[in-house]
């Protein structure tokens, strides 16, 4: 974990208001753990003032190339989307605890569940799982057709199911609809589930697996200050102890689904 400058190689839209930025720099070689994030200074000066947390989407460590996919929400991501090739971006990272994959064994089946801009970190995760010989199935949910991204790339790792709220592409409904007999995705069909996305999606998964013994991980979001554990902005109540918190920026963003209260 360090602070450094990465150079923009490309930065272009991949879906409605969603951009994919490709960056290069020495710092990238540290980015080996899927699920970690970078704290990004979207522009110089005080406007915007704070860094923005954005997940690592894909990494080519040999060439020190990093991809991130972000949706333009407000001032910071707007300014980031205007960065042209050659511009240097000030980033802090890699930060946090990513998706646990060391225990994974060849032949296991992992389900990756993503919603909206929660999908990006699943790509790097899926690639590493496949390297380990793990079978990967992806379920990715979006609002509507023009918001869909990463379908092809995830498709190269294994089956991909797309859901949209309006049914404009894939299955109409939510990601959990897919985890059924019909798609051969009943709980006994897979060994581990990794998810990242909006709170309602994660809540649905928690309700479903809270009392099960399935291995399920969720990646959480929270507004951050420092990104390194010092300011206590990003806390999330723990489940075991009373009166105790995780810091999402350092203890997370990835947690076991039974560890955290959503």
């Amino acid at each position, binding site marked *: *974990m360090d*602070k450094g400058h990465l150079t923009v190689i490309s930065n272009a839209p991949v879906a409605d208001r969603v951009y994919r930025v490709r960056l290069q720099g020495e710092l990238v070689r540290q980015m080996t753990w899927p699920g970690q994030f970078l704290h990004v*200074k979207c522009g110089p000066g*005080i*406007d*915007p*003032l*704070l*860094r923005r947390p954005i997940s690592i989407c894909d990494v080519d460590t040999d060439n020190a190339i990093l991809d991130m996919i972000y949706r333009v929400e407000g001032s910071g991501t707007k300014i980031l989307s205007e960065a042209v090739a050659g511009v240097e971006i000030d980033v*802090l990272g890699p930060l946090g605890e990513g998706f646990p994959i060391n225990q994974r064994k060849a032949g296991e089946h992992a389900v990756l569940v993503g919603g909206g801009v929660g999908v990006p970190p699943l790509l790097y995760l899926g690639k590493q799982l496949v390297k380990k010989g793990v079978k990967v199935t992806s379920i990715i949910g979006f609002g509507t057709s023009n918001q869909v991204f990463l379908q092809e790339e995830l498709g190269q790792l294994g089956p991909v199911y797309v859901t949209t709220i309006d049914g404009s592409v894939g299955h109409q409904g939510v990601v959990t609809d897919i985890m059924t007999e019909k798609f051969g995705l009943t709980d006994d069909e897979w060994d581990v589930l990794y998810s990242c996305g909006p709170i309602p999606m994660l809540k649905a998964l928690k309700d479903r697996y809270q009392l099960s013994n399935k291995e399920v991980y969720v990646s959480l979001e*929270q*507004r*951050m*200050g*420092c*990104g*390194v*554990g*010092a*300011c*206590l*902005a*990003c*806390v*999330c109540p723990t489940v075991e102890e009373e*009166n105790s*918190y995780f810091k999402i920026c*350092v203890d997370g963003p990835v947690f076991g689904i039974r560890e955290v209260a959503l």
Partner: protein
Amino acid sequence: MKSRLSVELAGITLKNPIMPASGCFGFGREYSRFYDLSVLGAIAVKATTLETRMGNPTPRVAETPGGMLNAIGLQNPGLDKVVAEELPWLSQYDVPVVVNIAGTTTEDYVEVAEKISQVANVAAIELNISCPNVKCGGITFGTDPVIAAELTKEIKKVSKVPVFVKLSPNVTDIVSIAKAVEEAGADGLSMINTLLGMRIDLKTRKPILANQVGGLSGPAVKPVAIRMIWQVSQQVKIPIIGMGGISSAEDVIEFFLAGASAVAVGTANFIDPFVCPTIINDLEAWLDKMGVQSITELIGAGWK
């Protein structure tokens, strides 16, 4: 030969006038992964209360133009854990610790001050009076000269180290409060704490912060801090630790010219974890540029 950056604060000698601000640096552990904390002039640690505090629900921060709002709410492990775990850990570094203490009753404050001021590496107490006083219907200690002075007196009685009273800027007449706490025995002042502010989310139509209001910090508040330090430093004899939007050596010098004898850097650590060592390095060059032998020559030079 004494360093050009070294300053004296109520009998404490700092190798340089730069310290991270309370609440923006935890108890130092996180930033110790970036650099050797011994380069710092001092460290102001997170507010410590008698008992463990959970703080406020999230979201706890929001961005504003040139600034940020926070409503962390004094989350901290409590006096015992701080004494048992945090301060001993910090003692590995050659850096004086300024312990920021908070409470809701005078008794709370007093107990924390008495115990913590006896810890070896605690060089000073920073009395955070921007807290609601439950005994006085929640009016914050820091907004009333009498209440602030009384609290200061009690703390001075028990503290083994110098006491810096951290003033709230959300007052009509900061000079009267500064004089009252000086009168009550304060060894110095820290100013300013955060300005009360708020942001509302257009999508939800509700405040962004779960706590609704929060404390404004960062560059946006700098001119208010400079003004208050300028006014107060001309009316009191005790030294002032200046803070509020500092992110560069130039900012530090502006605070000195206004009347500060040292400074704390808060929000800027979140943007650049190396900001404190960077400022310390840049200060020397600025002293040369200004033809100044010692940074102490600049204290209050704007009005002297």
